[in-house]
């Protein structure tokens, strides 16, 4: 059904279709609309979920963990400080191999208070064992939330998935949305290690180094297997519903001499910049990274690369730029842009390409090349 919605409402609408057993929720700007909309669904009985209005994000994730270990489907949503406040439990969810799905509306971290888009919040959770995906449109937020449940709950994965959307730029943007009936696209959840009182077991008991290390390796193996599950899920989604996605969305990339790599709405904006540059005769392309974890293997050889990071690791650099330097052995032009919701237009992005200096780093609007 064709409608218009914000990114937040699209996420809530997708959650409604998959009817989690338990949803634990705590408000935080700019995510609040998701948990409000879900509360509306539950109150109007459009959604048959247990809705737990918890007292903190730490408890939101703890409640999802407690529900999930019984074999229940669970969902929560957060942003920024909320995500960091639940950090301990974010780790716990992945370590306990629980397929919780969480929407995170990307927002900068204080101080000072800044409620606008930045990826640093989710990036601080990137080593926790969660799969992370970043979306760029309202439709993609909806479609990806549906896919997130199937990927998280897949027997070869059984890891939590975080769906990221840019604060305000996407969470509060009204765009067209085609909702769908997922049918059996997401099968019922079967958690092999669900609590069973007939077969009592200890969960998370004291664990020595050997076993602990083995469990970490199992998470990594699942992370690796998830690449295939993601690809299969995205293909099945395209076959059934006609919209295709991939781990990294290429745009006029094939023959490009120079490519812009970015995530979220900036990645979408880069496509407009590419058209602009192509009109000028510059053979530009773009690659919008959707999945941060597992990080995609990208073939970037033979062209200049401009990486835009809406994040930063102090004392190190742009995190996507550094990940690509390590995995794809390239020397990109690293642009740090859009922090704290800074406006970055397609003209600006075209400018990064025109003025690129591979091997150096630019803090857009703040410093020259360093």
């Amino acid at each position, binding site marked *: 059904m064709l409608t218009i919605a914000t990114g937040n409402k699209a996420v809530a609408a997708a959650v409604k279709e998959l009817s989690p*057993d*338990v949803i*634990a929720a705590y408000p935080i700007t700019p995510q609040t609309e998701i948990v409000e909309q879900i509360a509306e669904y539950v109150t109007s009985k459009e959604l048959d*979920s*247990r809705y*737990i*209005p*918890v*007292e*903190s994000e*730490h*408890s*939101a994730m*703890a*409640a*999802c*963990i*407690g*529900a*999930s*270990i*019984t*074999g*229940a489907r*669970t969902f929560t949503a957060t942003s920024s400080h909320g995500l960091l406040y639940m950090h*301990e*439990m974010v780790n*716990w969810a992945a370590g306990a191999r629980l397929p919780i799905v969480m929407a995170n509306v990307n927002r900068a971290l204080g101080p000072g208070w800044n409620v606008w888009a930045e990826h640093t919040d989710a990036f601080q959770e990137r080593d926790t064992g969660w799969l992370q995906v970043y979306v760029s449109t309202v439709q993609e937020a909806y479609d990806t939330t549906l896919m997130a449940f199937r990927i998280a709950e897949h027997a070869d994965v059984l890891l939590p998935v975080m769906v990221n959307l840019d604060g305000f730029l996407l969470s509060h943007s009204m765009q067209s949305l085609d909702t769908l009936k997922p049918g059996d696209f997401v099968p019922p959840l079967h958690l092999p290690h669900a*609590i*069973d*009182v007939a077969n*009592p*077991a*200890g*969960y*998370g*008991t*004291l*664990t*020595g180094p050997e*076993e602990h290390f083995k469990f970490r390796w199992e998470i990594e193996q699942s992370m690796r297997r998830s690449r295939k599950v993601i690809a299969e899920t995205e293909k099945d989604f395209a076959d059934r519903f006609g919209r295709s996605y991939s781990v990294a969305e290429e745009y006029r990339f094939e023959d490009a001499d120079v490519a812009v790599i970015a995530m979220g709405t900036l990645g979408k904006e880069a496509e407009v910049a590419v058209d602009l540059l192509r009109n000028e005769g510059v053979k530009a392309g773009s690659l919008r990274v959707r999945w941060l974890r597992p990080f995609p293997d990208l073939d970037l050889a033979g062209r200049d690369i401009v990486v835009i990071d809406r994040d930063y690791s102090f004392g190190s650099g742009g995190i996507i730029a550094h990940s690509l330097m390590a995995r794809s052995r390239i020397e990109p032009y690293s642009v740090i842009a859009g922090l704290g919701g800074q406006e970055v237009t397609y003209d600006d992005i075209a400018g990064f390409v025109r003025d690129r200096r591979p091997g150096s780093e630019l803090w857009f609007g703040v410093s020259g090349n360093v």
Partner: protein
Amino acid sequence: MTEIPKEEYVLKCTSACAGCPSSLILRYVLKAAGPDTVLVVPACCTSVIQGIYPNTALNVPVYNVAFASAAACASGMTEAFQKAGKKTNVIVYAGDGGTVDIGIQALSGAFERETDFLYICYDNEAYGNTGMQRSGSTPIGARTTTTPGGKTHAKKDLDAIVDAHNPSYLATACASYPLDLFKKVQKALSLRGSKFIHVLAPCPPGWRFSSEMTVEMGKLAVKSGLWILYEREFGKVTINGPSKAAMIKPVPLEDYLSGQGRFKGIDQKAIDALKSQSELRAKHLQKEADGIC
């Protein structure tokens, strides 16, 4: 006559210290709860007592979870069981640090939402698992590794805090009175809503007394009137037998204090504070039991 089931859910070979009250309490809690029970355990002595993966000394499912999160985790678990149409008991079994300090926010939230579960705090009045650092539940005058000169602040009144949430059932108990504890757990689990039992757990290494004295030490806590056994259900307070007797004729508090290394060198000011705190509590509870307030 109450029949205590013969089934054991705390199996032999736990890694508890000699004379451990926590495993003694848990033994009777689980006998009362039966096999359709899940324990939610935050970081505390019980994290260790249950043994090392892949073994477990507890014969019910145990969900170990991060320190601050037990009540919230239990909230999610309770809702999920209810959604699935299951009547499984969800019991949080937490130490005092995980309850009165780091876990109190989650506890408050779960009780405010009237989560249908039982929260048991076994209180050994310090962070026992990490080697006896002071907690909010440590009494004034007690020496811990972080209050080597004796604690200078009074024990936090956890029961008053929980009571402010108007729970379905609130009771205190003590490891030394297992039948009383057993009945209270049974009663709590027969009621809907949020239930709370606060159990005193005299800890031999932490309180510095000999390990065969655990039961005696708990009895002295009750007989001296420092620890009062009571229950509050449907707004009515009942003071239980041993504490009724203690209110009429208490044993000297000094008998309780002098048996424990943690109170060695306690000054008169701290003793007076302990006395006046327990007298005030007794007076208040007696008034409530008499229906005066």
